[in-house]
């Protein structure tokens, strides 16, 4: 029973976050409506978790922040999973020079201090990259940017896993049989190898989601990630930090949610990993 609790919590949290618009209309409060006369209100029936430094409803902002934080994490994890699987499968299947080159690249990226690099990357001017000013300053631009950057730095573990599994499968009888039958390399990769490594990959992606939520929260907390007024759990903590002496409460909620979400994803990932680990089969 307890094993399914994390999944239930995640589903519940996601459902709650994505019904934010509905809850907002039901309660008749606009979550972006700043009213300085309503700053730092304590929790009440009107404002369930009180109000923040601009008099906005904290509960609704947490829900909208959850949409962004969870959305970025899922988007980036899926992207990282796709990049990692493709690079890992290519390296593992072709071997030789391609393998050596791709793995050197992976090793380099793993060894680099990721956060300083992310900070530099996050400060890049999108307009200098040839993106129109309009798109660069759109409301959701920072969301896609952060998801892309994090995906770009998080595929390495997945690539290593995919490579290791592909190298084993490449030698297996069914792959050799397929090749003897004249099946093309891309088709062998997609139809014969990919389905067999998908379980391993999905576990790693689950664990990556937790990790990515943390990365996004750090970047947004530092002011380089999701840009206000778009809320995320990370950037809500930036403002809460300024008020830690007088309104400690504001700092607790977003952190609790980050912690809960990451904990659930890590728990699910660990659990799946244990189930897939052949060394754990001997005692069952």
């Amino acid at each position, binding site marked *: 029973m307890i094993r399914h609790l994390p999944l239930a919590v995640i589903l519940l949290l996601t459902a709650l976050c994505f019904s934010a618009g509905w809850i907002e209309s039901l309660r008749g409060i606009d979550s972006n409506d700043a009213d300085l006369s309503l700053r730092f209100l304590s929790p009440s029936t009107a404002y369930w978790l009180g109000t923040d430094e601009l008099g906005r409803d904290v509960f609704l902002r947490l829900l909208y922040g959850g949409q962004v934080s969870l959305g970025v994490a899922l988007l980036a994890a899926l992207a990282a999973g796709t990049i990692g699987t493709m690079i890992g499968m290519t390296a593992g299947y072709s071997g030789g020079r391609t393998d050596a080159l791709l793995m050197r690249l992976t090793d380099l990226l793993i060894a680099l201090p990721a956060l*300083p690099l992310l900070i*530099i990357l996050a400060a890049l001017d999108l307009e*200098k990259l040839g993106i129109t000013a309009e798109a660069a300053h759109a409301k959701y631009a920072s969301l896609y940017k952060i998801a892309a950057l994090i995906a770009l730095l998080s595929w390495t573990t997945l690539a290593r896993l995919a490579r290791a599994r592909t190298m084993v499968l490449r030698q297996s009888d069914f792959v050799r049989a397929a090749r003897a039958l004249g099946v093309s390399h891309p088709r062998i990769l997609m139809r014969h190898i990919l389905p067999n490594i998908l379980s391993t990959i999905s576990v790693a992606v689950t664990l990556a989601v937790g990790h990515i939520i943390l990365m996004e929260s750090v970047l947004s907390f530092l002011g380089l990630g999701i840009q206000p007024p778009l809320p995320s759990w990370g950037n809500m903590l930036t403002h809460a930090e300024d008020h830690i002496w007088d309104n400690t409460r504001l700092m607790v909620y977003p952190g609790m949610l*980050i912690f809960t979400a990451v904990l659930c994803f890590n728990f699910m990932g660990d659990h799946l990993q244990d189930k897939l680990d052949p060394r754990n089969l001997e005692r069952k």
Partner: protein
Amino acid sequence: MTAEALLYRMAQALVTLLVLSFLVYTLIGLMPGDPVDLMIAGNPHMTAEDAARLRDLYGLDRPLLARYGTWLASALSGDLGYSRLYGLPVLDVIFPRLLNTLMLMGVALGLTVALAVPLGVFAAVRKGRLTDKMIGVFCLAGISLPAFWLGLLLIALFSVTLGWLPAGAVLDSPDVKTRLLSMVLPVLTLTLAGLAIYIRHLRSAMIDALRADHIRTARAKGCSEPRVIWYHAFRAALPPLVTLFMLDLGTLVGGAMTVETVFAWPGMGKLMFDAVMGNDYNLALCGFLVLAGCVLIANMLADMLYGLLDARITSGGKA
């Protein structure tokens, strides 16, 4: 590790740094504005002609590769340029910060290992029992906790509520006690945040080590249990651990960065952050290269240490 292999690794690290410097140089060029823009912002009397002349003077209108070539040539001759934010040569800015970061990370790392070794080994020995499960839950919580939030919570508890400890670093205070007290919270945060990963690595390495045949032999010949665990198994568990720890170093630097920002600790992390925020691109570039260089050196050390710890690698099959 032979001298030849060592030289090869060093050459490899140098090439890596060179490639990195070019990549980051290019990236920095993609940040908003250029140095002349910042001068214009600081001096309202400057005309467009002045700006064009300055761009010409500093070579900012030249192609990227040419600019990088000039930068590299002067960097190799030891001139890394000035920091715009501090008005000092970048190395003079970076060096004291690097020492501060190394001090913070060193103390935290020492404490982490001192706590992680007994806990990790204990969990591995009692695998599957209640103590192991409790340590497991602690670790799961530990890796799920955002380090900066943990720092904020500790500030809320020890500085705001209890008023026992300062919330920020006061490293320039003449009073030793104040300086030491201001170190407590950052060190505690880093230790608690890093502990879980280390315990997990240690536990799984120890479990693998305890499964090996030579452990059964040691037990069969009547070795005492502590000797089996600490001498036979722990030694066998060390080599993979060293690699894992060193590979994590990049992550660790990142962790230190966020904690530095929360506690206003004057280290590399805070410096990088301030440099990027203050458009001090030269400082950001050099800071990143110094950090990357440190991590690469640590990886090299790990390889050498691995050789020392695992006789099968050093002897090269001669044994």
